[in-house]
């Protein structure tokens, strides 16, 4: 936590324009020279329900959600069910205010729309009393009325932005520019008018708070604001992916939608199909025909992909699948993040797994590792899975624009041209040997042909097969084919060690303790490591992205170097700790776990608390976390 940070939370109902408003707010702050990071919280509903987005902004490197927040813009839920009716969910209209008070920091600011939340509707909140206790500064203001005066009620959010800007003494011109870029005509005029009006009215209020916007430190270069889903999409496109098939499911829908929007411009094809079995099967069909292809889903949909995934493994058909995790089991909590599908993607489908699984931790890693996933899939003819979660899917963060300035690579990998096929090994009957026991270059990859190429005919089959692809139960052939498919994993491990840099080391090398982490909480853990070291602890962290093939040597070496390590993950059964122990086969007594599975991502302070609890051997005070001691403890 730095003193110089704003964590602004806009809260309303689904449909109140929270997403787009927060995105503009974050972009404006980014343009002003600040680093920004957003965190979304929303229910599985089309309209109504308590939704918020947080924008954390600072002139220091911002890479995670913070601890609590310090500025609330509570729009109220204009899509709430009738507050007069008895309802299981209570009074929904007021939730954007009432549900956000518990983690507002001392000295924080509250702005709420008194046009929607009249005095009697908030009477039960004891707002005045609590404000005094916590030194909160409350500004009721009639945003609804202002919006109505200038046109449409939805413009409450524009009015709210203006009030925020006025209370924080910020120049509203960044917001004006953004509106001019995104709107036109009457709509633009009306929004600009609301902005000006609300800014003026908020300036007139007596300002009692100290909170200001952090001083802007200019960025060294142009920044872009984007999400993990954007980065996965751009990684896929830059690696030559031109085919996607999918079926909507939260949160996977994000990548599917982005790809569908961009592929036509890139001369590619997107197919929305009847179910996820078909989606994965289509990706295999396109790849078989020579196109770089992908599919994906979230837990339930990915379960349906188990059989096509196994088919890709045995037929050595390259494909990339994305798994966007949400809280399970079954339908679980559709809009909440969790990291509980790790074992699902590693082991689903019958038989021995031969697949690649990467778990990127942030936007840069989403881009890089998606590209690597495609390269490995097509060079080694193996399915690659990129597993991420609802948190990384939706959070926005600024990145140097130059990061994306890369050369595309559309190389389809181990595919032969017709000239090469003519030279390649064929069965005496003329059939191309697509699945050679011992490929000519000494590797375990037998190059393929694609339909339509002269002399390249072969049979791809889900049965065990001979070198030409014909069905066979011959024991020697079985061993040769199985060994070659599985040995590719060792080759890929060596390739990644040489050409990729997927594991992230953080903190002082000679630290006494370690925090071991995977996926989207990595950067939150890094923030916790900084604080722990500032507080006199000796801690470092390792973020692991290669789930399969697991980086056994790297992680072993790192674990050797620490006395104990805390494995932090968002699930209830310590899946990554289990994987680590299975892969390495030792260190059991060194590894304890900090788990969270209540649907909300870790805050840095929670990892700090979990760590201190673990080294002191105390009971964990926080009830939303779970501590799992090391084996044998």
């Amino acid at each position, binding site marked *: 936590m730095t003193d110089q940070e704003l964590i602004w939370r806009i809260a309303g109902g689904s449909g109140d324009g929270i997403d787009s408003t927060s995105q503009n707010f974050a972009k404006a702050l980014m343009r002003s020279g600040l680093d920004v990071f957003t965190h979304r919280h929303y229910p599985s509903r089309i309209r109504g329900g308590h939704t918020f987005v947080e924008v954390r902004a600072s002139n220091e490197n911002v890479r995670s959600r913070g601890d609590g927040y310090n500025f609330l813009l509570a729009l109220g839920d204009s899509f709430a069910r009738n507050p007069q009716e008895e309802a299981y969910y209570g009074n929904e209209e007021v939730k954007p205010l009432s549900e956000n008070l518990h983690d507002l920091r001392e000295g924080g600011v509250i702005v709420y729309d008194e046009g929607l939340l009249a005095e009697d509707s908030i009477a039960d909140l004891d707002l005045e009393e609590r404000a005094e206790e916590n030194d909160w500064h409350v500004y009721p203001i009639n945003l609804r009325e202002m919006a109505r005066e200038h046109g449409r009620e939805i413009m409450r959010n524009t009015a709210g932005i203006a009030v925020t800007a006025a209370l924080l003494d910020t120049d509203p011109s960044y917001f004006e520019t953004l509106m001019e870029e995104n709107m036109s005509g009457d709509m633009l005029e009306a929004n600009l008018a609301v902005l000006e009006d609300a800014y003026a009215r908020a300036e007139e209020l007596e300002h009692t708070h100290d909170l200001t916007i952090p001083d802007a430190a200019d960025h060294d270069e142009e920044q872009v604001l984007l999400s993990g889903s954007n980065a996965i999409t751009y990684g896929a496109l830059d690696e030559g992916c031109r085919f996607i098939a999918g079926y909507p499911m939260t949160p996977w829908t994000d990548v599917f939608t982005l790809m569908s929007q961009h592929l036509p411009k890139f001369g590619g094809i997107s197919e929305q199909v009847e179910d996820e079995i078909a989606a994965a*099967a289509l990706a295999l*069909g396109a790849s078989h025909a020579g196109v770089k292809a992908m599919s994906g889903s979230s837990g339930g949909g990915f379960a349906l992909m188990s059989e096509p995934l196994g088919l890709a493994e045995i037929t050595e058909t390259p494909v990339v699948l994305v798994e966007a995790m949400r809280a399970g089991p079954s339908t679980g909590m559709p809009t909440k993040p969790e990291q509980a599908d790790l074992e699902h993607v590693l082991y689903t489908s019958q038989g021995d797994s031969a697949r690649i699984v990467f778990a990127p931790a942030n936007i840069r890693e989403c881009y890089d590792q998606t590209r690597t996933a495609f390269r490995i899939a097509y060079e080694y003819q193996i399915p690659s899975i990129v597993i991420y979660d609802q948190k990384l899917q939706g959070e926005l963060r600024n990145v140097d624009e130059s990061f994306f*300035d890369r050369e595309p690579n559309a190389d389809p990998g181990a595919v032969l041209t017709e000239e090469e096929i003519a030279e390649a090994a064929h069965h005496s009957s*003329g059939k191309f040997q697509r699945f050679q026991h011992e490929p000519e270059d000494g590797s375990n990859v037998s190059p393929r042909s694609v339909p339509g190429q002269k002399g*390249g005919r072969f049979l791809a089959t889900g049965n065990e097969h001979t070198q030409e692809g014909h069905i066979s139960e011959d024991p020697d052939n079985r061993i040769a084919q199985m060994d070659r498919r599985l040995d590719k994993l060792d080759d890929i491990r060596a390739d990644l060690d040489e050409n990729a840099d997927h594991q992230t080391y953080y903190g002082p090398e000679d630290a006494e303790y370690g925090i071991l982490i995977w996926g989207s909480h990595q950067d939150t853990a890094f923030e916790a490591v900084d604080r722990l070291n500032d507080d006199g602890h000796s801690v470092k962290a390792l973020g692991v992205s290669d789930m399969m093939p697991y980086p056994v040597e790297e992680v072993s070496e790192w674990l050797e170097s620490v006395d104990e390590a805390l494995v932090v993950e968002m699930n209830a059964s310590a899946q990554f700790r289990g994987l680590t122990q299975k892969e390495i086969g030792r260190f059991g007594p060194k590894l304890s776990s900090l788990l969270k599975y209540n649907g909300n991502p870790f805050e840095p302070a929670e990892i700090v608390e979990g760590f201190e609890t673990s080294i002191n051997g105390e009971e964990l005070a926080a009830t939303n976390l779970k501590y799992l001691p090391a084996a044998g403890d």
Partner: protein
Amino acid sequence: MSAFSAIGEERDIDRDEFTPGIEPQATWCPGCGDFGVLKALKQAMPEVGRNPDEVALFTGIGCSGKLNSYFESYGFHTIHGRSLPVARAAKLANPDVEVIAAGGDGDGYGIGGNHFMHTARENHDMAYIVFNNEIFGLTKGQTSPTSPKGHKSKTQPSGSAKSPIRPLSLALTSGATYVARTAAVNPNQAKEIIAEAIEHDGFAHIDFLTQCPTWNKDAKHYVPYTDIQQSDDYDFDTSNREEAAEMMFETENKLYDGEVLTGRYYVNEESPSYGQEKQATGEMPEEPLAERYFDEDYEWERSADELLKHHK
């Protein structure tokens, strides 16, 4: 220049080219109707002028799925019920390849029923041959989606309480633009229908009656059969949906009364195929996508040039 020189090659095609050197002899049971499909398919190929390297055959699981082992072409023996989604993406990726899909009645009308419905609805340009023997053969004789009501098997010991599926009606309702039924015992008609289905620009469904002499001994061997186009008893317009639907309904009923009707039921030459529809919306390139990966001069688009501007 195309990277796929087998496509559109001008030469005479001999049906023997489609007999693989590795497994020339199929291992189906003696008297199996599947031999009839294989033979008719091979005979149809010279008629449509396609060579083995430009044909991709996608099959499901079951005795019918073995078709790939005994038919020389590019082949993909997929998983149970899923030949159609694999096949249709291959067609979108390279529309110049002749895509044929095949499977059994359990594969296509049971486990893959959803894909059958949607592939027909989308009118993908391919022929789909369903080996309909009214039984699960390879798993040893269980009741299938086309088994008659009352059919007894190890899994339905008191006789099936379910009415069979109506494959022709289902194809029509779903959106197939060519629907026919033929039988293994009618090789000439089978060959002609397969050739027509391959040449049809859209989803062509053939319900191919294939007797199972091992597990469905009670079933007739689909003789005698009537070719509805040859018979004076039936007169209807195959381009008329309502008349086709009525004829299909009658045919499906009569099969279970012991009367085998075969022939073309619905032929719609007007509807564009899915690929054409998709190209018309601008969401599918005019040049086969598969060619692009072999084009060394192609300038691949970059996200940095096209998309980053929205994020500034």
